[in-house]
């Protein structure tokens, strides 16, 4: 599609900031319009990277589960092994998010279970830090 969605969002934000917001009454209206424009710019960032972030996170968590499942027992181990064997069936954001939420829930359980194991703890934090890094949003001008 031309123009792309991120370009539409960015140019619309500039239009809102430069042309529309100055026409509004000073105060809450201009402040809110500016913030909405800001979020349109953040949405433009997210449009391009959203699927990539989720696919990468889900892959990281599955690999982690496969590696650390042997360290736990019972239902948690079975759940980790089953989750490690799953795949993202769709690249729709809603589908990726649903899978991501399931994996995050398991990740929290796994972390609590093996936190005292220094090697496992370090591996989990490596994944968590990568997840946090990917999700950080850059403000316009940064």
């Amino acid at each position, binding site marked *: 599609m031309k123009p792309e969605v991120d370009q539409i969002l960015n140019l619309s934000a500039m239009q809102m900031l430069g042309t529309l917001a100055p026409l509004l009454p000073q105060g809450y209206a201009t*402040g809110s319009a500016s*913030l909405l424009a800001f*979020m349109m710019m953040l949405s433009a960032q997210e449009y391009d990277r959203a699927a990539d972030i989720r696919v990468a996170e889900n892959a990281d968590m599955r690999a982690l589960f496969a590696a650390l499942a042997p360290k736990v027992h019972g239902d948690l181990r079975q759940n980790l092994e089953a989750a490690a064997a799953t795949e993202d069936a769709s690249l729709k954001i809603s589908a990726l998010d649903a899978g991501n939420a399931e994996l*995050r829930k398991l990740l929290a359980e796994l972390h609590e279970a093996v936190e005292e194991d220094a090697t496992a703890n370090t591996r989990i934090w490596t994944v968590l830090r990568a997840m946090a890094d990917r999700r950080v949003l850059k*403000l316009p001008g940064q």
Partner: protein
Amino acid sequence: MSEDISERLAIYLSGKLGHTVEVANLSRIPGGASRETYRFRARYNGQDRGLILRRDPPASLIETERSAEFRAYQAFHGLGLPVPEPIALELGTAALDRPFFVMAEIENCAVGSIVAAEPYGAHRQKICEQFFTTLGKIAKADPASIGLADFDGVHDVTTTWKHELERWEKVILEDEREPQPIARAAIRWLRKHPPPPAQKISVVHGDYRSGNFLFDGEGDIRAILDWEMAHLGDPLEDLGWALDPLWSNGMLGRDEAIAIWERASGLTVDRAALPWWEVFASLKGLAIWISAANEYAEGRNSDPVNAFSGWYCLAFHNKVLADRLGGAA
């Protein structure tokens, strides 16, 4: 809507102040998502003064005690700190449909943006020194002597950390819309590494940071705002929050800020305790942003501040916590 509020507000203030009050130029201004904030002129008894109305939104972001917020304004305004004069508190819904309070407007001032690279310009040093000096004075104040001994919180210096951690853990558990593994890990870390007992129990502002104070063109702080999360607790809670990276843009470095705070408070920062409160600050931030995201997603409060907080700020604090706790793993 504004005209309707103006008329009803005038009737209310006339009864409260004992004079016929005319309300003019009422307009909504930015003031966070937890209260609707309006500026207006009040004309009565030969006066023409600017006032601020803070009214509850249809759904409040964090359930906060309005009378406590108002009493904090009263106490610290009375102590001579830069805090707007509180005028009236109304907890009923008859006057303006929702509870509200009215305070003096501090005119011709600016707010430092948390997203601006240099929010304080040439007055940076002066403003930042006043910022940490005033925070030190809040810590120094004796809650009982300013009438706030019955404030929310605990008086036990050994358990105040636990009380606050449980408060915000509950918010996360109730409001999270997706699992938050970094928040869960941070909660466990905070439990496993409790801080030393507080040196004293102080009034904690609860949201003392850039964006919540007004400064004038001479670089003087004229108003500390947003006392809605004020409570009793460890004064290091406010210091940890004020030092958080989310609002450190344009602020002083950590060591200089701590030295100023120590001089004003008469306390010595326990360097072993402060990191706990800094991690707690980022977790508390996560809790607030998670709550904001939930309010927005549920359609209870569509203020764009909630969307921004629940997205940008949430991602920011997840990274801060992952770097702090994961870096040491």
